[in-house]
């Protein structure tokens, strides 16, 4: 099987009759069979369904009425609801739970004739940056199996990286699509907040959560966004703005004004190869005639505290529904209602999730609400206003996706703050609700991939994707 990196080339070969969807699915299933036990990217594999769907799509291609995603074999992060399939959110508390409806994003890719091959491992409820917080085991980086995949959409990234599927739908609350994409040498896109409906996305932090594609090419990210984006009756917050044709890239050459975050790019904490690769990229942009300038963002040191106060607060409330009453895990040690609640939740949730629920409960509690929660909301506004201001002057803001390449397994698990610091460059986009994409930018001396992140203005994904396409 050819090494396909884009749907376009697959569709060309499908239409030419060189390959069939069935062959594609068989190819991916073969890779899953060989590598998934070790890499642990997929939690569930829908082999029979995928093959059946493949046959169906092959028919449709013959009769000429196949959808836009025909030929795309896709995996979905286990935070996305897929009707009549289990959705664990990477947690024991939802062990065995079957969703009873499709997430809108999932429905849309199904309607476009994509083939869903399985549900993917992730950090529990999206809380984590390495996929080590999954209740179903860590996910390993295929490039270096002693390294983490990144998180929380680790499984979604490794699946694409190891050719277990062409693309994945992941979710990004603080960098969870972009960071694993960066660690795994892939393209990861976080759209503008509210660009894609959150109906069917198991909520972590409602005002931060986004669904985004992880792909091998910028084109595929664009096509997927085009399919999943847009208004949806079931999500009150979703944007009702028209969805442009993202896959029609704007190739007109313009001189762009690009700002790079000084505090990020010149940070002492950057791994040397990451620094070099980033500078190289900036130099190349200058050489191409763009204006490339350092921008200062004094508030950068407040990104993470702001993010963690607000996301833990929202999460502590979103996760209250997991109480052992209507679905999910119920402790068999319970003697009365109170112990049923407390034991079920203590047994069902992992350590990091419990820590964040405790933090969130604390910051929302009456005596501390203003000191933490309201304060964080105010700082969020400051960060957003400043970022919007920068993006009115610059076309894009860039920086490395992460300060380092993928950590070794277990390297960051002892100290939560060390873990959180890895999100520094990615959280900004979630704090301010803007779109950002990570594209591969070389590898380090061990061959571990380096990511380059580009952030654009609200609902400017077309410009963002077009620019990313020109670079990768």
């Amino acid at each position, binding site marked *: 099987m050819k090494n396909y990196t884009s749907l376009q080339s697959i569709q060309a070969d499908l239409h030419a009759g060189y390959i069939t969807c069935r062959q594609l699915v068989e190819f991916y299933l073969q890779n899953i069979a060989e590598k998934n036990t070790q890499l642990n990217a997929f939690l569930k594999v829908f082999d029979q369904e995928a093959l059946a769907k493949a046959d169906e799509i092959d028919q449709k291609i013959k009769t000429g009425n196949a959808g836009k995603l025909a030929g795309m074999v896709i995996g979905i992060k286990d935070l996305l609801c897929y009707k009549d399939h289990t959705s664990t959110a990477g947690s024991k508390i939802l062990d065995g739970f079957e969703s009873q409806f499709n997430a809108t994003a999932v429905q849309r890719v199904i309607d476009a004739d994509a083939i869903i091959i399985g549900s993917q491992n992730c950090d529990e409820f999206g809380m984590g940056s390495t996929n080590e917080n999954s209740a179903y085991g860590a996910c390993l980086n295929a490039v270096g199996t002693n390294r983490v995949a990144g998180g929380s959409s680790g499984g979604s990234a490794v699946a694409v990286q190891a050719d277990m599927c062409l693309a994945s739908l992941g979710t990004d609350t603080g960098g969870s699509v972009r960071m694993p994409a960066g660690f795994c040498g892939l393209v990861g896109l976080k759209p503008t907040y509210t660009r894609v409906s959150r109906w069917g996305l198991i909520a972590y932090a409602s005002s931060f959560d986004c669904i985004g594609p992880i792909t091998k090419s910028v084109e595929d990210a664009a096509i997927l966004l085009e399919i999943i984006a847009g208004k949806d009756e079931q999500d*009150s917050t979703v944007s009702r703005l028209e969805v442009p044709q993202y896959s029609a890239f704007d190739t007109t050459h313009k001189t762009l004004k690009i700002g790079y975050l000084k505090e990020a790019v010149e940070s002492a904490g950057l791994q040397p190869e990451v620094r070099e690769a980033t500078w190289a990229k900036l130099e190349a942009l200058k050489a191409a005639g763009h204006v490339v300038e350092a921008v200062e963002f004094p508030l950068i040191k407040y990104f993470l505290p702001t993010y963690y106060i607000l996301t833990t607060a929202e999460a502590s409330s979103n996760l209250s529904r997991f109480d052992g009453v209507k679905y999910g895990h119920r402790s068999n040690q319970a003697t009365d209602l109170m112990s049923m609640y407390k034991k079920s939740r203590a047994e069902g949730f992992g350590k990091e999730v419990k820590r964040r629920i405790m933090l969130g409960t604390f910051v929302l509690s009456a005596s501390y609400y203003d000191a933490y929660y309201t304060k964080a909301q105010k700082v969020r506004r400051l960060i957003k206003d400043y970022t919007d201001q920068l993006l009115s002057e610059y076309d894009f803001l860039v920086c490395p996706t992460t300060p380092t390449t993928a950590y070794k397994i277990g390297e960051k698990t002892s100290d939560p703050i060390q873990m959180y610091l890895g999100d520094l460059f990615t959280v900004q986009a979630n704090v301010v609700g803007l779109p950002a994409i990570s594209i591969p930018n070389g590898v380090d001396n061990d061959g571990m991939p380096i990511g380059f992140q580009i952030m654009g203005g609200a609902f400017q994904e077309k410009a963002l994707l077009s620019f990313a396409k020109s670079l990768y």
Partner: protein
Amino acid sequence: MKIDKEALQKIAHLARLEMPASTEDEMMGSLNSVLTWMEELNEVDTADIKPLTHMSLEVNALREDKVIPNISREQGLKNAPKQDGEYFRVPKVIE
């Protein structure tokens, strides 16, 4: 802000998380260090800044008042840890 064991158990109770004594120190330690780190926000001058309460630009997302039948009772009870075909069951609520 320092959380002591009493505060820890109060929060755990609000969050309905069992926090056995053996887990208290670790949780307290990590909570306190994260809270200290979060307190850096106090360095930021936010006088006269309005809290950002809604991230979506949309307003007035309303639904027509129409009944759309959804899942059956059987489906609704399907995922339940304990049910009797009609009701969800929980250990008795003591009033």
